């Protein structure tokens, strides 16, 4: 019942709609590039000058900025994907009734879910790309595997957008979005972003490893520093499953909310 259409065949129409909207408001998108860059300067280089080198394990150690930058890139992918999958989606869902109009056409909830999640992850990926270029220019990329950091950031964007969209379908008022910050801020601070996971006692390490951004950070850091291992495949698997799960739930939620 969810997808009477071949899944998401027309999802790209939602992306076209969003492109049309942002064609006038590109400056809004542009502003999102700066935040991670400022963090990189302030924390990566500023605080980094006090910290010195950080061990990646196995006798491999790198300057603090090299350690922090990929984590900021992962956080950028997440935050970038959340812009459109939280506030903007809520506005379209509850106030503008955008999807009521969309669902009166041949498009279905699966198209809406896939289209909006894809759009959100595109935005996250765009910021990640910008940040990766800055990282490379500042000499913070020390492995050619960093080329794969962009698709990895897209994957982080995918899982974040999917989870963000599901959460948004449960929101009832704008104040509920305070919860997004309550969740994302600790993720940004404690997902082995600014310090290695070895800082935590063992039980807490196990807990952090269950959270999503940890896997994003681990994946991108592994690629930009060339610190590869089978753990990266676990990271990929975790993010793919989380995103697919979020997408499926989103379709169900939209069906429940809009096709009563």
């Amino acid at each position, binding site marked *: *019942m969810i997808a*009477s*259409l071949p899944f998401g065949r*027309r999802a790209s*129409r939602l992306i*076209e*709609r969003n492109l*049309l*909207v942002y064609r006038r408001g590109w400056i809004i998108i542009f502003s999102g590039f700066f935040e991670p860059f400022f963090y990189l300067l302030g924390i990566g280089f500023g605080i980094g000058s006090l910290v010195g080198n950080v061990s990646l394990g196995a006798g491999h150690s790198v300057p603090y900025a090299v350690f922090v930058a990929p984590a900021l890139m992962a956080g950028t992918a997440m935050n970038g994907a959340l812009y459109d999958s939280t506030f903007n989606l809520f506005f379209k869902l509850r106030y*503008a*009734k*955008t999807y*009521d*109009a*969309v*669902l*009166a*056409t*041949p*498009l*279905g909830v699966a198209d809406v879910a896939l289209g909006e999640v894809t759009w959100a992850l595109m935005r996250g990926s765009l910021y990640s790309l910008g940040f990766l270029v800055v990282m490379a220019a500042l000499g913070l990329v020390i492995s050619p595997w960093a080329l794969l950091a962009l698709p990895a950031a897209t994957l982080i964007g995918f899982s974040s957008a999917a989870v963000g969209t599901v959460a948004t379908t449960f929101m009832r008022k704008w104040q509920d979005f305070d919860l997004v910050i309550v969740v994302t801020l600790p993720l940004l601070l404690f997902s082995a972003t600014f310090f290695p996971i070895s800082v935590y006692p063992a039980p807490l390490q196990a807990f952090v490893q269950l959270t999503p951004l940890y896997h994003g950070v681990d994946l991108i850091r592994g690629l930009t520093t060339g610190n590869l291992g089978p753990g990266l495949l676990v990271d990929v698997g975790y993010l793919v499953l989380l995103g697919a799960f979020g997408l499926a739930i989103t379709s169900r939620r939209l069906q429940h909310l*809009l*096709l*009563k």
Partner: protein
Amino acid sequence: MDPLISARGLTKRFGDLVAVDGIDFDVAKGEAFGFLGPNGAGKTSTMRMIGSTSPVTAGTLRVLGLDPAVDGPRIRARVGVVPQLDTLDMELSVRENLVIYGRYFDLTYAEAGRRADELLAFVQLTERARDQVEPLSGGMKRRLTIARALISEPDLLLLDEPTTGLDPQARHLLWDRLYRLKQRGVTLVLTTHYMDEAEQLCDRLVVMDKARIVAQGSPRELIERYSTREVVELRFPPDAAESMDGRLNGLADRVEVLPDRVLLYTANGDAASAALHESGIRPESTLVRRSTLEDVFLRLTGRSLIE
């Protein structure tokens, strides 16, 4: 010829609430068909089921010969929907609203643009093509919504209370556009709680009340069947109307006492008001008019349509 829409025992329930309670109707191709009834009668729920955006709880429904439960996207591809509340895309311009809607129906940009320009002319919004939607008047927004519903050149146009909240001038402009569509062979299905709208636009209509159909036919037939040719409307000073009831009974086929006025149903209004005058009853005002669907509704349900 097979009907364009056919419903048998069509039912919609939301939990314990029965919104549509086993209704039967058929809509023929090229017809303008109306659902008339007060708020909460089940009109919108019926429309949404026809538009395949709300699942049928029980009964059968065929739209364009297809089952909405199976062929929703195929039905929606051929149906234009004008919802009760405007759902225009406030983040896009007037013309972009039409073009992107055309894209939802798989039109090419070139084709969607061509149709958008044609439709803007049709609904008299060409000058506003590049404007944002928000500052448009209510009537303009309704016209844009109708244009949007037509972008796919639908076989069937569903209009849920198309003129609610519009001023008389905007309503007449809208009726004119709908009449032209009908002449082009577009099948119109509309809901309304305005009697004049139903009489103006509908070839045939069903009267709905409390989730059921209580009567159906052409406006003319309904009036003939459930009312008299003419109506005399009397107004009395406050509290005087109730005491008139008995004295008025012999003057007309039927007397209806409403909070603000008394209605005498009769074949000949002038004769009835003359008889009234002779019997010494002096209302504050007397008006002789033809029967309308309002009278039909009152007769069928014992209530006015808009309370």
